[in-house]
């Protein structure tokens, strides 16, 4: 089993927003998707996922609606709003800058 690492503070929002970029997803799918794409390195605990979704919704970056899942059950879908897209861009750029800078320090020192 691949070793899992703790999510650094503040990255959870970024991951959720990025995962929603292709289209609306329900909570479970979001956590599955993050886990898959990160080759099982990142996993989102349910205990933090749902409070995060509520928080993002309160900020107006995502919105929710009820839809039907693949096996015909009612599920709550989340999708990005325009403000969410802008936020995603901002945060992605900030993250890139951060990682480059951290890398430079690690190399240079």
């Amino acid at each position, binding site marked *: 089993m691949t070793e899992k690492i703790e999510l650094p503070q503040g990255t959870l929002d970024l991951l959720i927003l990025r995962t929603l970029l292709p289209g609306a997803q*329900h*909570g*479970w799918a979001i956590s*599955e998707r993050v886990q898959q794409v990160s080759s099982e390195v990142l996993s989102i*605990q*349910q*205990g*933090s996922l*749902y*409070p*995060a*979704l*509520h*928080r993002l*919704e*309160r*900020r*107006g970056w995502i919105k929710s609606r*009820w839809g039907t*899942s693949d096996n015909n*059950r*009612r*599920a*709550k879908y989340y999708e990005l709003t325009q403000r969410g897209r802008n936020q995603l861009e901002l945060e992605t750029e900030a993250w890139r800058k951060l990682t480059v800078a951290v890398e430079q320090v690690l190399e240079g020192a």
Partner: protein
Amino acid sequence: MLDDLRYRSHALLHHKQVEDELDEELRFHFDKQVEKYRRSGMSEEEAKRRARLAFGGHEQVKEDCREARGTSFIELTLDDARYAFRQLVANPTFTLVMVLTLALSIGANSAIFSVINGVLLKRLPYAQPERLVRIFLSNNEYPKFPLNPWDFLDFRARNHSFESMAAFTRGDVQLSGEGEPIRLNGFGITSGYFRVLGIHPQIGREFDFQAEVPGNGLQAVISDRLWRTRFGADPNVIGRKVTLNMQPFTVIGVMPRGTEHPGNVYHSLAYGESVDVWWPFSFGGNSNQRGSHFIEGIARLKPGVSVEQAKAEVNAVMGQMAHEHPNGDSGWNVLVIPLYSEVVGATRQMLLVLLGAVGIVLLIACVNAANLLLARASARQQEIAVRLAMGAPRLRVVRQLLTESLIISVTGGALGLGLAFGGVRALVALLPADFPRAHDIHVSGPVLVFTLLVSVLTGILFGLAPAMQASRTDPKQGLKHNTRTTTTSRYQNRLRSALVVAEVGLACVLLIGAGLMLRTLLNLIRLDPGFQEDHVLTASISLPHNRYNSGELTAQFFDRLAAKMNALPGVESAGAGSDLPWTGYDENAGGFNIEGKKSEANQQTHARYHMATAGYFSAMGIPLLQGRFFTEGDKKGAPQVIIINHAMAAKYWPGEDAIGKRITFDDNPKKDDDWMRVVGVVGDVKDQPNSPGAEPSFWWSEYQASEPDMSIAVRTKSDPRQVADGLRNAVHSLDPELAVADVKQMNQVADASISTPRFTFVLVGLFAGLAILLAGIGAYGVIAYTVAQRTPEFGLRVALGAQPGDLLRMVLTQSVRLAVPGIVVGVTLAMSLGRVLQSLLYGVHPADPIILISVTLLVLIVSLLASYAPARRAALADPMSTLRAE
């Protein structure tokens, strides 16, 4: 921001829906997880177990989501409130006792605070009232004395401390014309009087300097009330004539509603909208004669000038004046007193004592409530243990219990506010008649805020300790099933006993206070005033100078009136005097010479002077000690005579017979006419109901002195009110244009003079009664609780041979053990507080042994009564049920 608000309010308003949806969402997630594990080959059981582990606490996730929604605080509070409400409804007796005791004590506090707010806290209704000061003179003989008119003019001209300065003096006027003539409260004022107060006439203007010149005085400024009642609020009233004292005055101004008289000392009239007419004070006569003091100063300080600075400056001016007029102006100090202290200063101490007393009642109610909550907390240990075991944080439990006490206290506060509305009305009705600003006392905005604040603070004060205590419950201990033997910690029992001791102590303080007030009141009632107040009808009549312009006419009028009254059936005697006892009259004459005695340079003679007719003393019931009363023979032209009181005889003719002795105000008496001969000595009438004795006084014969403003006194055989109409008829048959004012009975006057101590006693007594009742409930609660706890023990004792009487005694002893330290604490506290009360007491020492002993006995009796029922229950303990239970 707006989205955020919309989101939060949606979450709040659709709380149930949002919660249900969250549930559904989480269940969906869970099922998906289980399905995933199943697909990887796990059994149904195993998959569910794993999913549950991965999921963590379901409740915790929901709580975190609520927090993320930003509505958790309100939702939690609503949750707590719902929970608390269920708890309270489930224990109606407990809730009712708590809410009612708090309602009573918070309501009492709100009512007293309404008085404090209206009287002490609300600003006086003048522009920048903190800059207004009153100006008086003072010397050894007269600590607070009016000004001489010329002194006032010098002050006004020479000072640099005041922005403006004015003077005023009481001078009631008689209004006649249409309808029955009436007497109106009036004041003579200098120009600028209203400018000093910062009140402008609503129509017209106030007096200018021209009006201060003698002869220009037939002008009047009238009150809004008079304008409406007498002139139909005529907007063209300016310039109209009005008949005052039988002379035509021209109305030049109408003051607005709420023009409050600032109160005065000389022929005092209480603060308030008590004045209807102002007339111009004029300065006439010789400016070098400065012995006559009868106008009062009021001034507005310049911005930045302190009262002390102003006082220093006007005293320097007084020094110059003393130099210029050594005869009249030396020996005086000038007092500059802030108007605020002048208006409410006298009531302050009493109101603060009442606030203290009612605060103590609230404190006792708090202690009581805390005690009840503590008792209940131990009964609820199990419930709390369950909540703690389920993972509720301790802080959450504290919060929940505090919510409960807050609901109780705020409900109590709301009910209390209702009580305060009624209480304030009763208080105002009970207030002494001359109490300042009584009409400013309402349950107003500040009172609402005060009540809310007090309710919340009360809830926290009595709720916090029990809540903390309860949250310390050990879940393991608490969950053990046998609640009956659940051991309450020793600490808790001691805390509860300490609370009862504190309660009893505080109640003792109030009881001792009430005892002191009662003795003060009784002492005042029992005082011999020096006259007989019952069966006397009094009234005042003022003869306008216009019609009664000679001494003969004045004397003749009062003589005829007395004769008409004496002819009425039921009348024993009738007379007239310049004043009635205890009505604020204070006329003084100084510097007379006594025949045959050298006046000592530094010891000026002085006495109060009055005028009286023949029948005055017997109508008032003032006894004649020596000599005779006045007769109609003591008239103008006859030898001048005076009657003196016992104090004057004792002071100036000690050990001698005063009858026949003579005094004079003339520095060089030549002829017999310059002397006044003492023809009678009468008993002392106390200057004030609570003064230790009487100042030296003498009476001139009205037939010689011809005072036009007189008080009528009629002594009757039965109810004096029956001759009131007779008096009016008698006056009007002599002169139909005269007003008969202030018709009342002398015992009303006497009654009014003790109304302040009576008011204080009634309230402190009421609070003390409430306090001892609450303390009794508190003691009962603790004793009943310990008896319930110890029932098995009692059962065992009975099984071992104890008699019911032994158990009864045991419980009663426990109660006395709580009461005794309480009494010790209370007495000690009362001793140290005694000084505060001193100024409100009369003839009783704060450490009065009779009061201390009666309070001790009363508290012991109450504590025995409180424990009697539980003690009976203990005595009836059934050994069988104990043995079965153990």
